[in-house]
């Protein structure tokens, strides 16, 4: 029995079909990440699960029960709204404790839970502020705190940390996982942050165009993307994609030849086929000095990300990005690139779906 199960769910707003027959099953106590481009329907999906939006067609099961027309209040869901939805007339404490107060939770239990949420989300000192006296990030944290204290069966979070700084974000994400490990709520978490997605998620669902493109563990989603959309979508900067052709022991890529590892060479069925080769920027190794198999290139510009440096150059008119742990060119533009053959992905040129990996 799944905790949340959507079967061929569709949602239409006026004439726009936003969710197009989506299937999704979530285990009890699982942490599922929803990833997808802006406007792909993530918030809508959460609203469908919570019952705040009615399902146009298809079925939703909660704990095995058909829930299409179950009242939202009966679903035992806590939700962090993308727009926070704080009560303007209540201060921070009263916003956070609202649900508990309404359900007549004992006062000391309320104080305990609210106190903990305030601590976790660094809201100390703001307890008696009204929402309009808070900064954007503070409001977001209050919204998260309000959902946290509910300790419901289902926990839906819509980009709950998007307006926080990296430190707070890192901290909050760890606390969320910690809390989850205590209460084991079924958690659906929308985020655009790769680190959040990879570290919080037990599985990641990549949504595109109202359908799920891939649903798998974070490692698989990153390291074995099911198709070019997922491949490009996960990882920043995006994976480089080249038109390529596989041959025994070699890959022909824009006129260059890359020597392949044994595993790939064995996939003879692919030989001669046009494919798309995906190479993450980290797997494109740049060096100032020539080396065996390295191809000279003129770097157009580079970006210092602090901990890493990204180099941009064009290969046959296509922009290619390489990421190195530190600046290796020191302002030079002449460099040599080569591909780490272990880190290659191949996709069907027509359908874009992953061809598979050796072993």
């Amino acid at each position: 029995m799944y905790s949340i199960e959507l079967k061929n769910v569709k949602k239409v707003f006026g004439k726009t079909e936003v969710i197009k027959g989506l299937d999704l099953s979530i285990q009890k106590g699982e942490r599922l990440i929803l990833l997808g481009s802006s406007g792909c329907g993530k918030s809508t999906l959460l609203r469908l699960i919570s019952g705040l939006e009615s399902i146009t067609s298809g079925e939703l099961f909660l704990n095995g029960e058909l829930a299409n027309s179950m009242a939202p209040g009966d679903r035992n869901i806590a939700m962090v709204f993308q727009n926070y939805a704080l009560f303007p007339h209540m201060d921070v404490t009263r916003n956070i404790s609202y649900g508990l107060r309404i359900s007549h939770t004992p006062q000391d239990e309320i104080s305990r839970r609210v106190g903990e949420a305030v601590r976790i989300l660094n809201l100390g000192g703001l307890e008696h502020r009204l929402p309009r006296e808070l900064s954007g990030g503070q409001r977001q944290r209050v919204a998260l705190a309000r959902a946290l204290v509910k300790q419901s069966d289902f926990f839906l979070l819509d980009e709950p940390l998007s307006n926080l700084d990296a430190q707070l974000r890192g901290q909050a994400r760890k606390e969320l996982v910690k809390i989850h490990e205590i209460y084991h709520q079924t958690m659906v978490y929308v985020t655009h942050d790769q680190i959040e997605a990879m570290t919080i998620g037990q599985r990641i669902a990549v949504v595109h165009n109202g359908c799920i493109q891939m649903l798998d563990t974070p490692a698989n989603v990153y390291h074995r993307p099911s198709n070019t959309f997922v491949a490009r979508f996960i990882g920043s900067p995006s994976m480089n994609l080249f038109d390529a052709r596989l041959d025994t022991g070699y890959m022909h890529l824009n006129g260059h030849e890359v020597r392949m590892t044994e595993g790939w060479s064995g996939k003879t069925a692919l030989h001669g086929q046009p494919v798309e080769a995906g190479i993450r920027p980290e797997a494109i190794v740049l060096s100032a000095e020539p080396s065996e198999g390295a191809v000279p290139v003129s770097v157009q510009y580079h970006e210092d990300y602090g901990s890493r440096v990204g180099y941009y150059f064009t290969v046959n008119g296509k922009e290619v990005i390489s990421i190195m742990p530190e600046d290796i060119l020191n302002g030079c533009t002449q460099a040599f690139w080569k591909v780490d053959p272990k880190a290659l992905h191949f996709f069907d040129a027509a359908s874009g779906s992953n061809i598979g990996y050796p072993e």
Partner: protein
Amino acid sequence: MKIDFSEAKWHILFIILVLLLIYPLLFAVSTSFKTMEEAYSSSALIPAAPTFSAYERVFTTIHFVQILSNTFIIASIVTLFKLVTALFAAYAFVFFRFRWKTPLYFLLISTIFIPFTVTMIPNYMTLTKAGLIDNIYGVALPQLADATGIFLLRQYMKGIPSSLMEVAELDHVSHWMRLRTIVVPIIRPAILSIGIIFFINSWNDYVWPAIMIKSEANYTLSLALQMFVSSEGGTDIPVAMAVASLTMLLPLGLYAVCQKFIIGTFAQSGIK
């Protein structure tokens, strides 16, 4: 925002407007402190020799406290009842989904369009049967049936962001608690404004009490004012204006208190 020239112009326009509007009030208060002779001979806003004699006459000739309390009871009942029912009805029309909602609302609102003259006689007849003639509750009763509050409050409620109600919905909060803990606090300034208008309308109502009330024990302030105005025998202007001033006093005081309250709570509840 900074004051620019156009604001200065508005400013002046305003003061003129306010003075024009406020004039009758000043006139009433000032005249109430004049002698009858001065009331007619001078139109100065400041009485030459202010006297309380008009007020003395008010308190000796009519049972002012009784009349004040009658008026207050009627206005309070009407205001509270209309506000409470309007809150419930408006809530239902905004946040419930039910069949025939739109036609029902339309019907309800169309009652606003019924002229008083149409309902007056049937109301009088009904109240006679109920033995409520010459009774302050009889005065209050027909005023209760008024859909204006629903009309106005509904608009305010529609301004509440739906996500706030959704939060409550997810928390399994009953409609009653949603109304109490979310809707009412957020639109409280609006409720108070509308309440004040209801109160004043009932407070100053004259036509209906004039028909309903017979004995002086049940008089309302607007009738008491009329007791000093006679076209045939002449009007005791200072006394009439003293009654008028006293009539304005209580709601104005109430408003001043509420205003503090409105400003106070608005600061807290603005959806900004």
